[in-house]
């Protein structure tokens, strides 16, 4: 059984790049297009880890983290944040809301994969 990763990002190109690399590494992938979709898929798909963008319509990454922490079914799923903004404030806020780490765009896809591996181990 492959480990499962949920990718939540409103940019289809970036989502595809991340999904492509994660699939290559052997993980089973689900995708979500915004924060609301992301929360639903978390509850449904129960991923081992979530890769979560900050700037999204409907519900942004911070909103997702807040909602997630209130839901016992999903609150312990580890989350890696992606952000285009480089500010220290954003990083601090994400960590304080429960994120494990923050990657700033443009990030190295290889680095993302190794970060995922660090958190949940290899795909199988």
């Amino acid at each position: 059984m492959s480990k499962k990763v949920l990718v939540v990002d409103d940019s289809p190109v970036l989502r595809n790049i991340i999904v492509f690399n994660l699939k290559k590494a052997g993980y089973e992938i689900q995708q979500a297009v915004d924060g609301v979709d992301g929360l639903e898929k978390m509850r449904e798909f129960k991923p081992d880890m979530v890769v979560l963008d900050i700037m999204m319509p409907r519900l942004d990454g911070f909103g997702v983290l807040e909602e997630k922490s209130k839901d016992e079914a999903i609150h312990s799923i580890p989350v890696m944040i992606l952000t285009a903004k480089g500010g220290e404030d954003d990083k601090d806020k994400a960590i304080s809301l429960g994120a494990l780490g923050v990657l700033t765009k443009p990030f190295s896809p290889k680095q993302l994969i190794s970060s995922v591996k660090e958190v949940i181990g290899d795909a199988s």
Partner: protein
Amino acid sequence: MPLKKRLEELLKRIEQISDANHETVINQGNESDNGEEYIIKVLDQGIERLENELVNYKNQLEESSIMLETQLEEISKTYEELSTLYEVTKILSHTLDPVSVGERLIESIRNSIPAEGIGIYFSYLDVEEFFYSVNQESTLQNTLEYCKNFVEEYLSKDSVKILMLDGEKLREFGLSDTIRSMIIIPISSTEKCYGGIVLANRELGSIFTAGDRKLLESIANQIHFSIENFIYLEEKIEQERLREQINIAKEIQRSLLPSQIIQPERTQIAASFSPAVEVAGDYYDVFLLKEKIFLIVADVSGKGIPASLLMSSFRSAVKIMVHDSHSLPELVSKVNDHIAQNDITDRFVTSMFVLLDQKTGVFKYSNAGHDPIILYRKEQDEFFEISNDGIPIGIFENQSYEEDSFLLESGDVFVIYTDGIPEARNENKEEFGFSRMKKVIKDNHERTAVEIKDALLEAMERFVANAKQHDDTTFIVVKYI
């Protein structure tokens, strides 16, 4: 529903993707004997057509999927490269001296281009360093030393170009079998090469690609820019440091020179002092010594703070010992001993000592390696160069110096100077020289000492024009009335 009706429904659905017109088929079916057989045959064909369409779609989908995968692979790779360039910029912007981040730069390159061996060679100012990282299992470990030497030698040439080697070309360059592919990107402008980036044995592919080259060129450019900035900064710091030293030296010198020149009865005295930008090594003084006039002009070897400190030492020695000495040679000798004993540098002072009794006109002088005094005798309308033997001050102890004397006559003019005057150069590198000096003195000998001094200054300024002054110019003009 009767069978026929059901068959008609089926046909309609197939018709949506097939070419058959179901009414015709049904009618045909009614006309032939085996109506049901015929309809089944058409259904069969329709289904076959459906199957073919499906297989087509499946193939197209697979092709698109493969194309998408390939494109995604490309995009992902480009994104990785972008991230690497961004990372490199960040690394370089957080440091002044690029050599301090050599290893981190290699790590960044490794993220984008997998190669068994990656190295960066830095060669600028007093930096000479080769950072490298080789996979542990790689066969390159054995040829590392050779590779380093090869790269350093290649990058030390003038006008270095990018080198991409594989296959036969590697052997042409004399590289061993363990190297399958190599790329060297110089970190350079058209004039100067500051080192280079080298990669050997690309993994995932046998040769380094144009894309690899482009990325490495961009990184090399950034490193080059960073190095140039660093060099510029170092130069600026050094300039500032020197300027500060010069300012201090000048302050010292200025504080030691006389603020006013005495004007005894029978003697007109005028002095001129013009320091060069970087020097501060000349000294002069005029004062009364037991009713006689003591004059001295000195030139300290060297420039900057050490020269001005030696000058200070010299002046102190003269000022103190002049009261203890019974003659000029004794004074010069004492001053010489003092400087030779106490000055730890290799510097020396040339100096002309003069004692003038203005009542009698007796002119005594002692020379320590200095240029001769230029004397213009009004009566004879002739020039004389007044000097005697004596080595510069500060070289050897226990030296003896000479004293000579003569009688000055009314109207005589003499000039004691440092070599900055005759050696002053114009833009054609010609020297002002003694002839020009003498001409000015002669042309103006009827005028006052101050006027003669001004005339000499003016002549020099006109001669030198826009050329840079490279030495202090100091002189004293004395006219005996």
